[in-house]
């Protein structure tokens, strides 16, 4: 029997849930938060590589195809045309705050920092433009999430940033 905790991060953030997976020769059973899922999964458990393929028979009789694979720390799942991403929740990741430190300006998407319009020590108002990002030919204005003083500018113009990376740290 294996168990663990997962949390959906895409398309929308979901609550942490606990699961158990039992896989005797007769087939796997899965329970989510203590409730058995009436779900039949047909797949190749010897599949080599990072992707599992198969189809499921759901309680309502539908039998959609799926594909799933771990990519880095994220579990990617495709089911009948829809994509989902989950992350494993461990003792450390529960303790880790989900959101970044209150009120810092984060990159909403991966891309390039096109312009930085503030410097450390500068007082900014909520909504004031701190930086401009570019990604896939789109320009996005990074507005200050609150009023405060710029503690540190964590990026420079031309920097490549990932989604969620801190751009500007703010303090009271």
């Amino acid at each position, binding site marked *: 029997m294996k168990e663990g905790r997962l949390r959906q991060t895409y398309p929308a953030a979901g609550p942490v849930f606990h699961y158990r997976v039992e896989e005797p020769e007769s087939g796997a059973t899965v329970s*989510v938060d203590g409730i058995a899922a009436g779900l*039949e999964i047909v797949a*190749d458990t010897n599949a080599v590589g*990072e992707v599992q393929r198969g189809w499921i028979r759901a*309680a*309502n009789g539908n039998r959609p195809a799926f594909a799933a694979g771990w990519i880095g*720390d994220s579990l990617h799942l495709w089911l*009948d045309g829809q994509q989902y991403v989950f992350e494993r929740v461990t003792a450390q990741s529960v303790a880790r705050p989900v959101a970044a430190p209150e009120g810092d300006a984060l990159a909403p998407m*991966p891309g390039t920092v096109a312009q930085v319009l503030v410097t450390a020590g500068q007082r900014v108002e909520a909504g004031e433009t701190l930086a401009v990002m*570019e990604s896939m030919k789109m320009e996005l204005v990074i507005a200050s999430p609150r009023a405060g003083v710029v503690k540190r500018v964590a990026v420079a113009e031309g920097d490549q940033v990932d989604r969620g990376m801190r751009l500007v740290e703010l303090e009271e």
Partner: protein
Amino acid sequence: MFSKVLVANRGEIAVRVQQTLQTMGVKTVAVYSDTDRLAPHVAMANEAHPLDGITAAETYLDAGKLLDIAHRSRADALHPGYGFLSENPDFARQCRQARVVFIGPSPESMEALGDKLRAKDLAQQAGAPVVPGSGVCRQVDPSIEKFAAVHGYPLLVKAAAGGGGRGMRLVNSREELESSLEAASREAASAFGDGRVFLERYIAQGRHVEVQILADRHGNAIYFPERECSIQRRHQKLIEETPSPAVGPELRQRMGKAAVDLAKAAGYTNAGTVEFLLDPQTQEFYFLEVNTRLQVEHPITEAVTGLDLVEWQTRIAAGETLTIDQAETQGTGHAIECRICAEDPYNGFAPATGRLALWEPPAGPGLRLDSGVAQGLEVASHFDSLLAKLIASGPDRAIALRRMELALARFPTLGVTTNVPLLMDVIRHPEFQAGEYDTGFLEHHGELTQWQPSDESAHTVPALAAWAAENAGLTSNNTHPLPNRVDPSPWRTLGGKKFP
């Protein structure tokens, strides 16, 4: 005919252009940025040259590098694709000076039509109605104030150069005017090297309908059945179909004639597209702009006519005569295209990146995929988010739509989030099914861009994720290693017993 052609582009269009060239027996030369060296357009080329750089400006927009490679590889022509330098008359002129045939219109007609303000003047002279607009404006001055007062908000800011929705903003009120002009101008300057913008009256209920034309150097010009491109996000097309559900034979002929007249008035040659805004209530149409290049959505025209537009672009550029008669362009059946983009449709279409761990396109009757990516490749944020175009066609609209819906649902993709779920929802929407939609469709149906969990996603998905978490393969940096398991029967049914 040319013996070797440099394709100065990347992604799906660089693949698609080379497919035709190689079919014609023409050798292809690909170019690539640092992050594109493993891309399909490079792998398929007869010859490939690095552009040594990461950003668009350092690579696919660098005319000097491209012409140097054309010279070194002894290419006798260059196909610009769409975007990048495809509508840049200076580049077309540099090609001419370097004795490399630019597969597209002349720099002169590109200048006349590619500039939206000059094109509107020409269209008016050729007898096509235009949307009321202002002259060039950089900041708010009395003439702009007056234009805004006469036409009222919302207004549209547009870039005089380029296309693809870049440098275009909707201005909802006077307060937004300054910042919108500034942002649009900045965006246009960085995308096209030309920051001129102007204001236009915004027609909210309009349908975006466009006419593909082909014209040769011997005075022959023809038009094709219109393409309906009203499903847009951020003024960028998402779904296109041909023919338009809103256009009948009489209107088709009037729009086609207006497009051909404009092309002739401008001395235009090669492939081009005349975009119109159609008021479905009055059946009035207004000239919007001319795209002096191959369009992203050209495959739907190919699907209904059986013609190869890239082949004709190449033959016209080589001086051949257009031998297709206007009567042969009618086409049969219906075709629809969906643009598959790396983006999050539930988070304001924010671009998505990552490695395409799984990319398994559907195939079957009436399906075509123009793709610029391959499984295992990294999708980076340096370029456009378009991964591929899925085209479905059939004897009628209902079959084409059904083929598209099924194909979208059977396109397993992992590693990069795409807009496929949104595309499926649009295709299934009753208004889309009825053919009754305009450019405001996605704004009117905001619920489509909000994630709505279904029963399946609430119950089945967590359980399947739990099973997959324990059974799916791993990549190197996963922190929860899976034990090596040996199972005697490779395919077995996992299920049966319910959890006690």
